[in-house]
């Protein structure tokens, strides 16, 4: 591994941090691939993952203070929750719907992350509802005088929902410490962005709510980090929300139930595969002498081993107790 070296981009990141970012991106990728493989093997009925969007995820989450800031992800955000502190084991337990999974104990669909001690807020599969929750956590931080930041992630499709509007408007009015991250991957399932909005950059909407919106190359992890850093700093200083649109691409089908060949050409996917954020970041690090081929391969090996170990652990972990299905509809004890 690299020792502490200066970040070339002037973002205040150390070399270790850059390597850690790469590691989290590779881990996210490998976990996504593993979960989809488990689906094809018939071991899990459903998989939704985010291969291709790792830069947008890791770059944004990296600007947060884990355990302190509020994290409101959506179903592709394996990279986000890894940065915040979830482990491959957490994620495989979750994908395999095991009883000890911290996210939901097998109750929620895979990739619906939750971790109270890490302040990762449980999400529904309902698109866009979580955007409002992040405004709520940020509102509480402000009311309580705490310098926490809330960050929320969602797709381009989510911007069409009424909840996205109501959330942004509320945040603007109160100048809340919240960062809206749109992982614009060009599609809402099969619907291309051109059928979802009549603007080139959806970030333009932020000015209708009185705060800045920025569009960033979502496959450039450092560019993403830079804009997230700025947004988090603004929020922490009490200067209000920011909307970040990270233009990226999902390299895989929408979910294990989707056949993306029905709505996009292989050429288009290939074109984006060439912009793979992991390959790009590796090339960048190599160019700047922060990574060599061996280090890269070692890292890939380490990632593979970790995912294997996590898979093995999770596959052997017990299923939820059937009767536990009746639990936790309401609080078991009084008070809170």
């Amino acid at each position, binding site marked *: 591994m690299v020792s502490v070296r200066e970040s070339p981009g002037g973002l205040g990141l150390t070399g270790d941090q850059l390597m850690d970012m790469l590691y989290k991106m590779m881990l996210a990728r490998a976990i996504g691939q593993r979960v989809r493989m488990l689906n094809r093997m018939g071991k899990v009925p459903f998989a939704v993952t985010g291969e291709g969007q790792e830069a947008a995820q890791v770059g944004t989450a990296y600007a947060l203070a884990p355990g302190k800031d*509020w994290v*409101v992800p959506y179903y592709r955000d394996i990279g986000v929750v890894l940065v915040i502190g979830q482990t491959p084991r957490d994620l495989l337990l979750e994908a395999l719907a095991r009883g000890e*999974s*911290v*996210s*939901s*104990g*097998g*109750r*929620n669909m895979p990739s*619906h992350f*939750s*971790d*109270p001690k890490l302040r990762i*807020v*449980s999400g*529904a599969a*309902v698109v866009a*509802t979580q955007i*409002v*929750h*992040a*405004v*709520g*956590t*940020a*509102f*509480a*931080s402000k*009311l*309580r005088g705490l310098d*926490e930041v*809330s960050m929320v992630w969602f797709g381009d499709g989510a911007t069409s929902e*009424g*909840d996205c509007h*109501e*959330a942004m*408007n*509320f945040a603007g*009015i109160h100048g809340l410490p919240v960062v809206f991250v749109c992982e614009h991957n060009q599609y809402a399932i099969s619907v291309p962005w051109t059928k979802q909005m009549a603007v080139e950059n959806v970030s333009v909407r932020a000015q209708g709510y009185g705060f800045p919106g920025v569009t960033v190359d979502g496959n450039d992890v450092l560019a993403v980090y830079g804009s997230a850093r700025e947004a988090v700093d603004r929020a922490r200083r009490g200067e209000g929300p920011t909307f970040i649109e990270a233009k990226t691409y999902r390299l895989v089908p929408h979910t294990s139930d989707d056949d993306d060949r029905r709505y996009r050409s292989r050429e288009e996917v290939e074109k984006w595969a060439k912009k793979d954020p992991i390959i790009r970041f590796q090339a960048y690090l190599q160019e700047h002498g922060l990574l060599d081929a061996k280090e890269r391969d070692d890292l890939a090996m380490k990632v593979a081993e970790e995912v294997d170990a996590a898979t093995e652990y999770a596959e052997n972990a017990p299923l939820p107790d059937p009767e536990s299905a009746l*639990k*936790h*509809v*309401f*609080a*078991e004890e*009084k*008070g*809170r």
Partner: protein
Amino acid sequence: MAEKNMVEAVRDAMSEEMERDPRVIVLGEDVANGGVFRATQGLLDEFGPDRCIDTPLAESAIVGVAIGASLNGVIPIAEIQFADFIHPAMDQIVSEAARLRYRSNGGWGCPITIRAPYGAGIHGGPYHSQSVEAIYGHVPGLKVVCVATPYDAKGLLKSAIRDPDPVLFLEHKRAYRLHRWDVPDEDYTIPIGEAEVKRDGKDISLITYGMMLHHALKAAETVEAEDGISAEVIDLRTISPLDKETILKSVEKTGKALVVYEDNLTGGFGAEVAAIIAQEAFDFLDGPVTRVASPDVPIAPYAGVLEEYVLPNPAKIASAIRDLAAY
């Protein structure tokens, strides 16, 4: 002890809880100005603009922001100005507030109270009159309270605010200023999930809630005086969780059950009450489980003559009591 009407009791409950627990806040449309029914009157002055918060006109955000805030150490009371306008927030209530604890395997809880004036009888027309308890009483993970007296309102609202789970607190708006009844000044709570026998009787059980409680009590007086029929009147107070025991105990005694509700007949919450009685008190029944409710038209047309035609009232209830008693 002082005489209060129901809207004052609601206000007192909030004010006392905000005093007791600094985490409690109120948010909603026009609440800083006291609310359209004056239920939040004075809270801004007492607790300041950080605890009595006007929101933009956006019900989904009102509930969704309350949910998020409740995860971060705040105990929100969200006001929906009229229950008719709760529908835009349906998704946040049903998909989110009610399912958060379950889907996170107990990891997260959502201690919010959503208050809404509901019900007809004030010439509110089809958008200021609706009953929504059947929709929400059907949702696991959500508690639903329907109050119609000052005493119950104060005690149950305090319980709702202190409850670790989301509570939809429905206040019948026609009952807001209907009576001034004794309400203790001191702190007290009424457990969520307990019905109350508001009138003892032996011939027939009237099971009801909300404004229909008052109509049922009136009808019970009438049939006692005119026909010598002794009607027991049960006020459910909480729709969910439902107090089956109190219902069944009464029906086992009287053998006759009349379920009275203001909402549309078909699929109203009274259907659930009737179904429980039909299944669990079958051996005790001396007559058909009978329902009095509004016909299946939008509640309620505006013109007085139309509204009156549609809604149940003491006379309609009394006539159903007589029919069932004579069965």
